[in-house]
């Protein structure tokens, strides 16, 4: 549906009230995944593979089961075997059955009276492995003679003649690229590599499961999507969906990494076997070894440009690896690589390749950051070669309303040009630079999703409102949802309380992903409010004895619609609510939708970096984020998304990476050597929110959560490349890599 933007004046949307969960979170009362207990609870621990790739010859857990305090042991044989591809992969990833496919792959789990007893018991489990050859790097895994991670997994779209590790192929684009390159005055071709990075949420995965002998179960866990957890766990445990109630705890960060299921089925299976509640909490090392990092990539980009900065053609070939299980993340990289440009000829090819790494999990705009980094690096290099202003080059080629996007559809209103112009006009862009300093710029893009959403809105008899939604609040969404309900109903924000339902209390909601919550849940909340308003208008009409369609809603009250309807003083929401029992019963609004119309979001980041020419150390001096938010419902949390995404992207660009030894084992499974940015690594991150309303949302909202992680990779790389006068093509740009580039002469 199109919500043609009547220019609406908002009273509450766009303000910055206190978040409803603020008090609980600053006092330590908020309950996260590991913060609950149950009477008689056991503690569980997981045995993980020390091999990158091995056959499981046998598992003998008799000694573990006999260990003091141990109540249950589960192995892969205890989960219900799945036939279907992706469920089967989740099952194998949760507990390996015949082969371990990466260092850290779960093999067995133990529940005991204490965590220590469970950990001791793990050491008593005898697993006989037969080691198999492994492969870690994506380019190595594509070679014909590479060790095979899984065979028979290639989809029909993979051409003949590739290693069996290649499971997926895609191609996008339009126009004649050869003809386009022939028109170019300058062509740059470069190859890039990016490392796998982890979402790095501070809260490790944690859950508390209770499964009883009558086939009922309760699960408390930190997740981005309790309904998804329910669906997967019921399949893996053989439960009816209705009998497994999943409650999402407060969530200590996710960024896509908590869209998956890892330990929950193990805890349920252990609870089933022991007849006791089971708590299972990952260690930080387990989080790094066994939960999803993003894909690692190897990318070739070729772009042609005329002397005056017009892109004539672009081509990219992307090879991604998301670990030991098939995925199609590369398709989003291939679609978005050139999304910022209005191009006559563009072609992208994508390949997914299996390696002996943990199963990829989505990470903020999955697949896009590395693809756009590669493209933005080449566009920057062309701007340098042709001595053109990098913003002017992007403005000249920017995607706009009516552009045929690199992934096919024609763009509606998109805010890229406005965003670029804001960057160009900002004082940051003109500020002087000192020696060894460089300024980098990158555009970024994300599709943004809608999806399945269900919201209930209860009008309480005291005139307050309870909003019940089903998407875990990662970054302040309860505040935004409450604001939209308050706006639509015309009641103060303080009258609203929004809660996140468990799986039994509200219909299905898709995962909190794809920057969909403020858009989709907001849409459903507005619609649920309208549903309630319609009912309240009906009650007012009855009270006044006029037709229901002669009543409208203004400023939180029912009023007669015009002169002819009759003369009655407004009936406020509170007044209608107070007599709701007398006028027909409780009042509630409801809405369910598979939301479409999520508007794409563009961002532009400016980064100033200084490089120490003797050590290759990089310091980020100044950073500014420009982004089209459609409509910033709670601007503080929009800024927060922009700043947080920028910080993660800076970490990705400079220091974060999965480091493997020759043995295929992860060498840096802790926060000491997996270096996420600390407070003293970063400058202020300035933000400029643009609001180009999304025609697909009643308030013009676009998702904002994912786009901000896309531009930093290119912005930082371009800044560093300009600072040292050498083009860098590999992330992270760790000091040894930068120094090597400087010294190479």
């Amino acid at each position: 549906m199109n919500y043609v933007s009547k220019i609406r004046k908002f009273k509450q949307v766009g303000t910055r009230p206190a978040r409803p969960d603020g008090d609980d979170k600053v006092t330590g009362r908020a309950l996260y995944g590991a913060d609950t207990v149950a009477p008689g609870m056991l503690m569980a621990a997981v045995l993980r593979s020390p091999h990158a790739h091995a056959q499981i010859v046998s598992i003998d857990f008799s000694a573990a089961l006999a260990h003091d305090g141990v109540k249950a042991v589960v192995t892969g044989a205890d989960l219900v075997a799945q036939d279907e591809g992706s469920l089967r992969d989740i099952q194998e990833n949760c507990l390996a059955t015949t082969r371990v496919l990466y260092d850290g792959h779960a093999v067995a789990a133990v529940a005991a009276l204490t965590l220590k007893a469970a950990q001791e018991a793990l050491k008593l489990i005898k697993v006989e492995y037969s080691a198999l050859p492994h492969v870690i790097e994506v380019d190595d895994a594509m070679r014909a003679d590479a060790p095979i991670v899984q065979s028979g997994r290639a989809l029909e779209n993979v051409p003949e003649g590739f290693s069996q590790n290649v499971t997926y192929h895609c191609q996008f684009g339009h126009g004649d690229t050869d003809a386009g390159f022939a028109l170019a005055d300058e062509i740059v071709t470069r190859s890039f590599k990016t490392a796998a990075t982890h979402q790095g949420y501070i809260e490790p995965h944690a859950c508390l499961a209770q499964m009883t002998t009558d086939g009922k179960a309760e699960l408390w866990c930190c997740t981005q999507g309790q309904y998804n957890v329910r669906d997967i766990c019921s399949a893996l445990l053989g439960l009816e969906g209705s009998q497994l109630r999943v409650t999402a705890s407060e969530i200590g960060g996710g960024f896509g990494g908590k869209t998956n299921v890892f330990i929950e089925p193990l805890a349920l299976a252990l609870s089933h076997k022991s007849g006791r509640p089971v708590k299972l909490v990952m260690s930080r090392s387990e989080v790094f070894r066994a939960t999803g990092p993003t894909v690692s990539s190897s990318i070739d980009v070729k772009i042609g440009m005329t002397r005056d900065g017009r892109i004539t053609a672009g081509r990219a070939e992307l090879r991604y690896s998301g670990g030991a299980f098939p995925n199609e993340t590369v398709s989003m990289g291939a679609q978005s690589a050139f999304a910022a440009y209005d191009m006559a000829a563009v072609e992208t090819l994508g390949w997914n390749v299996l390696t002996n790494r943990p199963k990829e999990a989505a990470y903020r705009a999955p697949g896009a950051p590395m693809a756009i980094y590669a493209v933005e690096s080449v566009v920057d290099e062309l701007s340098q070669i042709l001595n053109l202003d990098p913003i002017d080059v992007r403005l000249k080629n920017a995607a706009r309303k009516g552009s045929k996007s690199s992934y096919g559809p024609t763009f509606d209103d998109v805010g890229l040009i406005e965003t670029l112009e804001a960057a160009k006009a900002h004082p940051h862009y003109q500020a002087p630079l000192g020696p060894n300093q460089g300024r980098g710029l990158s555009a970024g893009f994300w599709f943004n999703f809608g999806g399945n959403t269900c919201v209930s809105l209860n009008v309480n008899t005291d005139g307050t409102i309870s909003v019940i939604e089903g998407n875990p609040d990662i970054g302040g969404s309860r505040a935004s949802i409450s604001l939209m309900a308050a706006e639509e109903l015309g009641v103060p924000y303080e009258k609203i309380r929004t809660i996140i339902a468990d799986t039994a209390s509200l219909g299905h909601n898709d995962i909190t992903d794809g920057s969909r919550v403020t858009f989709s849940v907001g849409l459903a909340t507005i619609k649920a409010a309208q549903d309630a308003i319609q009912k309240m208008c009906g009650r007012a009409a009855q009270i006044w004895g006029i037709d229901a369609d002669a009543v409208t809603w203004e400023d939180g009250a029912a009023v007669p619609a015009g002169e002819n309807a009759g003369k009655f003083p407004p009936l406020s929401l509170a007044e209608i609510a107070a007599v709701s029992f007398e006028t027909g019963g409780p009042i509630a609004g409801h809405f369910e939708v598979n939301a479409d119309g999520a508007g794409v979001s563009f961002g532009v980041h400016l980064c100033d970096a200084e490089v120490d020419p003797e050590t290759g150390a990089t310091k980020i001096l100044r950073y500014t984020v420009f982004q089209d938010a459609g409509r910033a419902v709670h601007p503080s949390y929009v800024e927060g998304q922009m700043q947080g995404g920028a910080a993660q992207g800076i970490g990705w660009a400079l220091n974060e990476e999965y480091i493997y030894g020759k043995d295929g084992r992860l060498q840096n499974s802790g926060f000491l050597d997996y270096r996420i940015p600390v407070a003293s690594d970063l400058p202020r991150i300035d933000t400029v929110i643009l609001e180009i309303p999304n025609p697909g949302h009643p308030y013009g909202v676009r998702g904002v959560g994912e786009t901000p992680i896309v531009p930093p990779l290119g912005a930082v790389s371009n800044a560093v490349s300009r600072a040292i006068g050498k083009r860098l093509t590999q992330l992270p740009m760790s000091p040894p890599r930068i120094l090597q580039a400087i010294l190479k002469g």
Partner: protein
Amino acid sequence: MKNTHIATKVNGDGVEFTCEPDETLLEVLRNRLGLTGTKEGCGTGDCGACSVLVNGRLVCSCLVLAVETQGAEVSTIEGMASGDGLHILQQTFIDHAALQCGICTPGILIAAKALLDKNPSPTDSELRFWLAGNLCRCTGYDKIISAVQAAAAKMRAA
């Protein structure tokens, strides 16, 4: 392993507990005393989510054995607000949107308060280096720095 009896003070209250000698203060706070406001992000002193004060010193409670707190005074996030009101730092964190997921927030509040008690007017740089051991993955630290500075100003004026 034999349990040891420990008498200590937590947030001003006398507390007695028994624990095994290898249990950390973090484990005892969370699992034996029900004080789950102190979070575990890593268990190895690299993230700061478990920050508490022991005898007035800012420490990671995951790097302290509970048996070491015999006779000590321990301060946790649960003791920061007074009965009827939030501490200025807590209120300012809410007002400045300095938290998103909130898992790092208790540790950052404890650490920030320890700094302001010692240095009421830190520079941004002093603040960033002081808080370098408190990882936050959501905010990019920007609003945290603003909030602490705003709270410091209010505390100086108070």
